[in-house]
C-alpha cells in the first residue's frame, strides 16, 4: 500500500495543496503592506481559539477561525485608529494569544502532545469534516484574493491614494485581516499555527528574487507554496517528522537557493548591461574655466611662506595677488 492510497494522506495532501495556494496568495498582500508578521500574530491568537474548542468540546477548527477573525479585526482596528503602531498591536496579541492558549489547554486537561499537533501540524489530524471546512475556507480566500486583486493591490500599495479613488479602504483592510485569519486556520492542520506565517511570507520573498510585476510575484509565490507543501507532506510521511517543520525548512531552502541565484543573475545582468544613462543633467553649473599658471616654478606647501586659504576641498596659496591651487603636476590660477 503506497502512501497515496492511505485516506488520511489523501486528505493531508488536499489540505496541503489548498494551504500552499491560499497562504502565499494572502501573504503577497501582507508583504506588500509591510505587515509580514501579521500571520504570525494571528497564528498565536488562534492557539487560544484551539484551546477554547478543546475546553468546551466544540470543533477546534471552528473556534480557532472565530477567535482568529476576532483577533485579526482587533489588530486592524488598533492599527487604523493609530492608538498603537502595527507592530506593537501585533506584539500584544502574540503574547496574549499564546499565554491564553497554554492556560486554557491546561484547564482542559490536555497535554503538550495535543497542543503540538496544532502548533506544528500533523498528517493524521485532518478529519473528513475538517477537510470540508478547509476546502470551503481556502476557496473563499482564493476567490477574494484573485477577484478583488486590483482593489487589494491599490490599498496595499498606497493607502492614501486608494482612499482618494473612493475605495472603501477600511473595509478592504479588514477583509485582508479576516482573510489572513481564515488562512491561518486553513493552514493549521498542515503547517501548524507557529509556522503558518512562514508559508505566507517565504514563498513571496523567494518569488521576488526573479519577478518584476505584482501579478507574476503572486502566481510564482503560489506555485512555490504548493510545491513546498506537497513535498513537505510527502517527506514528513517518509521521515516521520512534523509536516509543518518539513514544509518550512523546504521553503526556506528554496529561498536560499533563489536568493543566491537571483544575486548572481542580477550581477551578471549588471556586468553585461551597465546602468542605462539617467536623464541628461540640466542646470548643473559648468566647471569653471581651467586656467593653468604657466610661469609658475614655485611649489607651495605649508612652509613656503605664502598665506594658505581654505577653498572647498583644497587649499589655495596667495602668491603675488593670485590664488594658486595644486592640480596634478602644475598650479592653477583660482
Amino acid at each position, binding site marked *: 500500500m503506497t502512501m497515496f492510497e492511505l485516506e488520511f494522506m489523501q486528505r493531508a495532501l488536499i489540505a496541503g495543496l489548498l494551504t500552499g495556494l491560499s497562504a502565499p496568495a494572502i501573504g503577497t498582500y501582507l508583504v506588500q503592506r509591510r505587515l509580514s508578521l501579521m500571520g504570525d500574530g494571528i497564528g498565536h491568537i488562534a492557539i487560544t481559539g484551539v484551546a477554547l474548542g478543546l475546553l468546551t468540546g466544540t470543533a477546534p477548527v471552528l473556534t480557532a477561525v472565530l477567535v482568529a477573525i476576532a483577533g485579526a479585526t482587533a489588530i486592524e482596528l488598533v492599527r487604523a485608529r493609530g492608538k498603537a503602531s502595527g507592530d506593537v498591536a501585533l506584539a500584544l496579541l502574540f503574547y496574549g494569544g499564546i499565554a491564553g492558549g497554554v492556560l486554557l489547554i491546561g484547564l482542559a486537561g490536555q497535554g503538550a502532545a495535543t497542543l503540538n499537533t496544532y502548533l506544528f501540524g500533523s498528517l493524521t489530524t485532518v478529519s473528513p469534516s475538517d477537510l470540508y471546512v478547509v476546502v470551503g475556507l481556502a476557496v473563499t480566500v482564493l476567490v477574494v484574493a484573485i477577484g478583488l486583486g486590483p482593489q487589494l493591490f491599490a490599498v496595499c500599495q498606497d493607502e492614501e491614494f486608494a482612499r482618494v479613488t*473612493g475605495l472603501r479602504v477600511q473595509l478592504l483592510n479588514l477583509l485582508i485581516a479576516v482573510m489572513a485569519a481564515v488562512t491561518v486556520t486553513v493552514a493549521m492542520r498542515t503547517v501548524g499555527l507557529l509556522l503558518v506565517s512562514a508559508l505566507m511570507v517565504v514563498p513571496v520573498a523567494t518569488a521576488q528574487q526573479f519577478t518584476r510585476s*505584482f501579478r507574476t510575484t503572486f502566481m510564482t509565490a503560489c506555485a512555490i507554496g504548493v510545491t513546498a507543501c506537497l513535498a513537505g507532506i510527502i517527506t514528513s510521511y517518509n521521515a516521520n517528522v512534523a509536516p509543518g517543520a518539513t514544509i518550512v525548512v523546504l521553503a526556506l531552502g528554496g529561498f536560499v537557493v533563489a536568493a543566491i541565484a537571483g544575486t548572481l543573475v542580477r550581477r551578471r545582468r549588471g556586468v553585461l548591461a551597465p546602468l542605462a544613462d539617467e*536623464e541628461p543633467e540640466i542646470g548643473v553649473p559648468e566647471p569653471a574655466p581651467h586656467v593653468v599658471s604657466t610661469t609658475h616654478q614655485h611649489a607651495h606647501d605649508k612652509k613656503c611662506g605664502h598665506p594658505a586659504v581654505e577653498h572647498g576641498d583644497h587649499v589655495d596659496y596667495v602668491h603675488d595677488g593670485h590664488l594658486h591651487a595644486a592640480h596634478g603636476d602644475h598650479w592653477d590660477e583660482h
Partner: protein
Amino acid sequence: MTQDSSSTANAVQVADLSVDLGGRLVLRGVDLQIHQGEVVAVLGTNGSGKSTLIKTIVGLLPAARGEVKLFGTPVPRFRQWQRIGYVPQRITAAGGVPATVQEVVSSGLLSKRRLFRPLKAADRAAVEEALEIVDMADRRKDGVAELSGGQQQRVLIARALVSDPDLLILDEPTAGVDLASQGIFAEAIRERVARGTTVVMVSHDLGPMDALIDRSVVLRRGRIVYDGLPHASQTHAHVHPHGSADDEAGWLS
C-alpha cells in the same frame, strides 16, 4: 481669472476650515475658492499647513470646523472620485512587493472599475496614454523600484492622470526630482490645463511649472496670508516675471 465663477460651481470651496492634528490646530479658519480651470500654487514653509490643507481637501483628514466642498458637494458625501486626480507626497512609488509601472498606473482607474471585473481595452488605452504623457511608455513593464526618483514621481503623476480628472491635486510633486523630470511634469500639466483641468499644487519650488501658475496662495501658521497673482512673495527667493499670468491666460480661454 478668465472663468466666469457664477456660471460654474467652484472646483474647490473651503469655508472657515480648521483642522486639528493630535490636539494641535494646524489650519485655522481657512477660506479658499478655486474656480474650474484655475491653476493654483499653495506655498508656505514647512509646518505652515499646506499639506494638511491638501489632505483635508481630498478627504484624508477630517475637518474640526468648517467644511470643504468639491464641485459643490461636501467631501464626506462626495462620490465622484473619478473627477479627482491625486498625487500624494511620496519618496517612492514602490511597495513591499515588486510592481510594474503599468500595474501602479492601472490602480488610478479603480474609481471607475467595478468589483470582480477585468481591465477593459479602453482602460488599457488610458494607461498607455497616461504613460505617453509623462514619457514613460517604454518603461511600462519595468518594476517601479528600479526607476530613479524622478521617474517614480512621473509614474505617480500618470496614475493620477489616467482617470482623466477634472481636478488635479499634487502634493510636492517636484520634491527631489531632477530638472528633466520637472520639465516633463510641467509639459504634462500644461496639456491638462489646456483641456480645462483645474490644478492645485503644493510646492516649495515650482521650477519649470512656475510659468503655468495663475494664482498663488501662501500659508503661514495655518492661515492664508496671501492670495492673488503669483508675484514675488515672502517664501520665494526669486521674482516671477510680471505678466506671466496674462501670458498663460490663453490656456484657459
